[in-house]
């Protein structure tokens, strides 16, 4: 039956059409199609019924999830992502974003603005500054050519807006020869006004009615003369891709035309100007009046995005360390743009809301807990964080805790209350975590990127102990540094961090305690530093290196080494006290475990690396190899047994042929391949052989289509092997 369908499909006309508009309702010649469509559409209709207005989300919890929750998840997704989406835009909202549909473009747009301004300034300056050279702007875009396009698009907009000018963007793939390049330049300049599609170019006024060859710059000259054009910008988007001699020739040519046509060049450079210069002829270089511009690199933008969208305390979904690490690594290893990062982030959000029934609790409004299904409660009891929570309660051992644990396990009501509490307190928890992280970073022990520090902290939590490097670095500080540190910590506590969405620490008595302590400390510090200033002494604590003196005493012909703390002045002692207090305060205060361990963190924390990796970093070779060597992995058919040695005749023909293919060397005799194949497949009946031949044909054709073999002329009936998977 399936076969019949296939063979009918074969003769359908539209399958061989290049492109057509899909419309299954228009069933003229096709008859078997409607049934199939109906099946699909019925399914969809059923889904639509249950989820009311055709949500793409499916029912989870083995289908027991109520449509209401499905919708809750979906709206939660849209809301959450819109929030992050906006935030990514808002944090860069210095400028009007024209094309706001693509958020990532928004970021880049704004981040490019500085460069754009500089370039326009340069262009204006160059008019006066250089007379006999070609002004050229070298824009260092970095290796990510994905963002180059956008940059040059913006440049073209900005520059054409500011001055009457024309802008031509060249890509190395389009400009292979001098002639082709000139053609493109002339065509692009002229086409923007007139949409003529003549083969040879007819320019302008018609007074002389002269026709030009389409690569004659004279035509361009004639074209722009009446238009009062101040600049013709020629942008080499990927200057590395151009042939060096072509570039040199172009520069020389543009220079020679410059008195008549006001060329200005723009080079997009991924590497460095020096490399470009080395590639150009010296004579060409001399004709260039240039300036270098740096575009904000992706890494800088990444940090901003990371802070505002990933790490922020009020981010609807937080990502776990392993996923984040892989995302950052990918960003670092493969030179992919910020778009990729944002898209990975979005995909994580999508996965979270699509596949996690508990994600419905992300939205803080308590409505999500109304009509909570017993499945939800059951699912919650199965989470790791629940188990941890209960275990902790049991470990504490007090009667209240024990009873709490019992009620959590047995009583749905109290569990729901606990869930509600945890959802409410979640932001406070993450704020706490971030505050601690910020304090640690304020001591500037970690001078690496925030993103990395965040990921590490996510994994291990943030704690300051007597042994940690934070304490050491505090002890090494002098009075002014301590002063700034204390002020910084106080500001963190009082104001929080805007980027990270951390508010002031007001709740809880311990915050007030710490703050008071710090403020008292600050008073002492200021007092002390004032005295020190008066007396013009430098303060030393007992921890600072100079404070220790090595003494050598010779007693009875023996050398005794003793380390004596240099006598500390009263002020020094005071300072030491301050340092000690400071470290004590921090040690007692900064003690936050990772938010991953919080109860119900599963509902707002996504940390699954596999979907993202599978989807963004496909491994087609591995997949293909697996499907051909072990088809039963996919087919799970009865005939082909896994683990059986050798080539099984029941394998799909292409897989069978692939096995034989593996044994061949670089040149394959098809006749031998065929005889090997036929002996594997059949006995020696004639009819069977023809059937085997059909299989052989199909397998061979498919191997060829997959790029495994190609025709070879070395010998008759031989083919060449192309792939070693």
């Amino acid at each position, binding site marked *: 039956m*399936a*076969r019949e369908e296939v*063979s009918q*499909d074969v003769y359908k006309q539209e399958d*061989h*059409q*290049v*492109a057509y*508009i*899909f419309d*299954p309702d228009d069933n003229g010649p096709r008859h078997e199609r409607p049934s*199939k469509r109906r099946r*699909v559409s019925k399914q*969809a209709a059923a889904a639509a019924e249950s989820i009311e207005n055709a949500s793409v989300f499916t029912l989870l919890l083995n289908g027991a999830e109520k449509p209401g929750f499905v919708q809750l998840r979906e709206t939660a997704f849209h809301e959450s992502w819109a929030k992050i989406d906006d935030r990514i835009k808002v944090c860069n909202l210095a400028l009007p974003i024209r094309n706001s549909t693509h958020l990532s473009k928004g970021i880049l747009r704004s981040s490019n603005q500085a460069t754009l301004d500089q370039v326009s300034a340069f262009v204006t300056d160059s008019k006066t500054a250089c007379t006999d050279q070609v002004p050229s702007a070298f824009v260092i875009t970095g290796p990510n*050519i*994905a963002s180059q396009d956008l940059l040059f698009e913006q440049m073209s907009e900005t520059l054409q807006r500011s001055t009457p000018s024309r802008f031509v963007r060249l890509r190395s*793939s389009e400009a292979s020869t001098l002639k082709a390049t000139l053609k493109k330049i002339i065509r692009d300049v002229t086409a923007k006004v007139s949409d003529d599609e003549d083969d040879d170019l007819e320019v302008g006024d018609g007074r002389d009615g002269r026709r030009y060859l389409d690569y004659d710059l004279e035509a361009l000259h004639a074209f722009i003369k009446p238009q009062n054009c101040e600049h013709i910008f020629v942008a080499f988007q990927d200057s590395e891709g151009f042939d060096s001699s072509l570039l040199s020739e172009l520069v020389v040519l543009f220079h020679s035309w410059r008195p008549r046509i006001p060329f200005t060049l723009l080079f997009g450079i991924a590497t460095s100007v020096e490399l470009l210069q080395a590639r150009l002829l010296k004579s060409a270089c001399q004709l260039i009046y240039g300036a270098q511009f740096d575009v904000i690199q992706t890494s800088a933008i990444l940090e901003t995005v990371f802070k505002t969208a990933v790490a922020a305390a009020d981010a609807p979904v937080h990502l776990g360390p392993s996923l984040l690490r892989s995302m950052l690594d990918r960003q670092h290893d493969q*030179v992919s743009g910020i778009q990729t990062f944002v*898209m990975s982030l979005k995909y994580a959000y999508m996965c979270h809301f699509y596949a996690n029934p508990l994600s419905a609790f992300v939205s803080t409004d308590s409505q999500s807990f109304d009509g909570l299904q017993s499945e939800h409660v059951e699912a919650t009891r199965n989470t790791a964080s629940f188990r941890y929570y209960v275990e902790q309660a049991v470990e504490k051992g007090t009667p209240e805790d024990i009873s709490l644990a019992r009620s959590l396990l047995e009583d749905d009501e109290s569990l729901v209350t606990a869930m509600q509490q945890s959802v409410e307190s979640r932001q406070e928890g993450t704020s706490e975590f971030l505050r601690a992280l910020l304090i640690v970073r304020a001591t500037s022990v970690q001078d690496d990127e925030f993103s990395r520090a965040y990921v590490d902290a996510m994994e291990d939590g943030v704690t300051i102990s007597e042994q940690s490097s934070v304490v050491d670095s505090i002890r090494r500080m002098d009075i002014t540094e301590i002063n700034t540190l204390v002020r910084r910590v106080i500001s963190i506590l009082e104001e929080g961090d805007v980027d990270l969405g951390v508010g002031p620490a007001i709740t809880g008595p311990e915050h007030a305690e710490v703050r008071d302590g710090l403020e008292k400390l600050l008073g002492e510090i200021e007092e002390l530093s004032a005295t020190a200033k008066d007396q013009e002494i430098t303060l030393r604590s007992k921890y600072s290196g100079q404070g220790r003196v090595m003494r050598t005493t010779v007693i009875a012909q023996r050398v005794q080494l003793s380390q004596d703390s240099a006598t500390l002045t009263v002020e020094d002692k005071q300072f030491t006290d301050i340092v000690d207090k400071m470290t004590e305060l921090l040690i007692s205060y900064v003690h936050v475990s990772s938010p991953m361990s919080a109860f119900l963190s599963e509902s707002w924390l996504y940390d699954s690396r596999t979907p993202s990796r599978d*989807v*963004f970093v496909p491994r*087609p*070779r591995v*997949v*293909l*190899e697996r*499907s051909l060597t072990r*088809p039963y992995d*996919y*087919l*799970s*058919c009865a*005939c082909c047994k896994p683990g059986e040695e050798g080539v099984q005749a029941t394998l799909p023909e*292409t897989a069978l042929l692939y096995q034989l293919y593996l*044994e061949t*060397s*670089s040149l394959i*005799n*098809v*006749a031998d391949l065929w005889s090997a194949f036929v002996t594997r497949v059949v006995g020696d009946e004639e009819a069977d052989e*023809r059937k085997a031949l*059909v299989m052989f*044909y199909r397998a061979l*054709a*498919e191997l060829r*289509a*997959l*790029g495994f*073999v*190609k*025709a070879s*002329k*070395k*010998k*008759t*009936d*031989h*083919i060449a*092997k192309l792939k*070693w998977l």
Partner: protein
Amino acid sequence: MSELMREVISDVRALKLAPQKKSRGATVRHIQFSPARPSATASSSLFSTSNLVQRNPTNSNDPFRGPELQSVNMPRKRAELDVPEQLEQPRSIRKRSHQELEAIPESDLETTPTKRQRSGRYSPLTDDTESDSQAQSSFSDVIKEPIITVTESPVKEDDTPKPKRRGRPPKAKPAVNGGDTPTPKATRTANFTTPTKKLNGVNGSGLTPMRKAADQSAKRKSARAFIQHVVGDELTDEEDNGDFARHIIDSSDEEEEDIEGDGVTTADTSAVDEATTPSKKTPRPRGRPRKVRSPTPPRDMPPHEQYFAHNKPGRPKTSHNTLGSLALLTHEEYFTILKENPDRHATDIEYLESLHAESFPQWTFEISQGFGVCLYGFGSKRKLLHKLAAHLYSRRNTDRGDKIVIVNGYAHTTTMREILSNVGSAIDPTQRIPLAQPPTMVQSIISQLATTDMTLTLVVNSIDAAPLRKPGYHTALAQLAAHPQIQIVCSTDTPDFSLLWDIGVRSAFNFVFHDCTTFAPYAVELDVVDEVHELLGRNAHRVNGREGVAFVLRSLPENAKNLFRLLVAEVLLAMEEEGGDETTGVEYRMVYNKAVEEFICSSEMAFRTLLKEFHDHQIITSMKDALGTELLSLPFRRDELEAIFEDLAS
């Protein structure tokens, strides 16, 4: 190194061709000579076959066992090896070498037969390159072969010029064996003499077969081996060196596999030399495992290793079989059989597809969120995509006029213009997008889209198919896909599809990838029969061989027929000369001249007209060689050509 190899190969080839016949002649001649020899030797050499078999009972059972016994004589082998080499040298040198030979005590000569026997083995062995079973049979040949060669040694003693010529065949041996063609004289003589002297001590100078048989006794053998072991220490080192070099050579060419069989004998001998007893109890010589090398390389090599293993320099070693005897499939037969025989896995494939279909909601979600969906993996994904399109269609927003455009990348006629104009007409059927360069068309499509708020879904089958691989196509598609109102779903077939996209294009597509291995046959995507015929170099679109040509010629004037006959004849001749089976061209000028000579045509104009007719029917092809000379050739294989010629001549 490579030079050496070439030398070796050419030597082996020489061996392949020459020696067998020659040596057979030698046997005959030998019979004439033998009376001059002491009868004992004569008989010994005449019966050497049987002797051999008897003496080495193991030989017949297990050919690989042979070397063990022979190995006893190993040290002398070197000495012996040098002889043929010198024989080849100019006469004066040969004489001297002969004097050297005579300087060797008789015992050495006594042992020569066994030696010879081994060298004789080369010739038959080199012929088989194939399987173990063949190797087995050739080993039995070996046992017969020695008769021929063995005879030489007595002859040598005679110092008649003829046998020296006969000495030539084994000449290849030193090159092959040692890998070091010209051994420095000093070492050579050293090798030459030392062991023999010792042997002298053991064997005495007895030449009788009895004596020889006695020498085979285990006791003596062990004693001899022991002495050799003591003496041969210095030798073994050298052996090993030679061994090493030879192994390098061997590994570079499979053709020498068989030779290696012999080579290992040397390795074995050196091993046995060291062993105290050459009896069966001796542990297997250490060189042994290297010898058993299957024709297929080990299977568990990583791909890159395999690549290098398969792309070793040297001629590819494939058989000369062709598909000549096999009647190739026609389209009709292919489809008939296909229809009659349902796929064994049809249900499994169906099930697999239904599994994939379960992800439709997820994919729809991804598409709706601005991602492109790319399905990869083995098997046709056309049906699946069609279903997905239906799924999307059922969920589309009709109010906004959402449309789905399906593109078949595999269709041979696919061009970007057609795709884009289809996309354009999907957006607004009333407005046709002017045909222009793809980038311009993309611009106008985008500006058209701006006037509506529809969502357009592009479903591209086989986005990595050859017709879509042209430069600029993917950029245009990516530009479309990057537009927020356009969604893209596509399938890819090849494992290397991601190489099609640079980072810019890829981030514009914004793909999420899904493994969609379906195992479904590429029924529509591939024209299987044509595809295979193209692969085999049989042009699929041409008139069919002999009948086709006859058909074409029937409708052409007599002159045309004559010209075609002339052409076929010339091409056949050229093929004969070049000896290849490949398409061979003949010079346009030459054919024209001949045609004029035979009054087929009078002017070049007429000649061209005739050729054009052929060309239109694709029964000739023209090409230019490296010098720019125009060549005419016929796109048929030799046997076909011959058949055509017969038809024409009759």
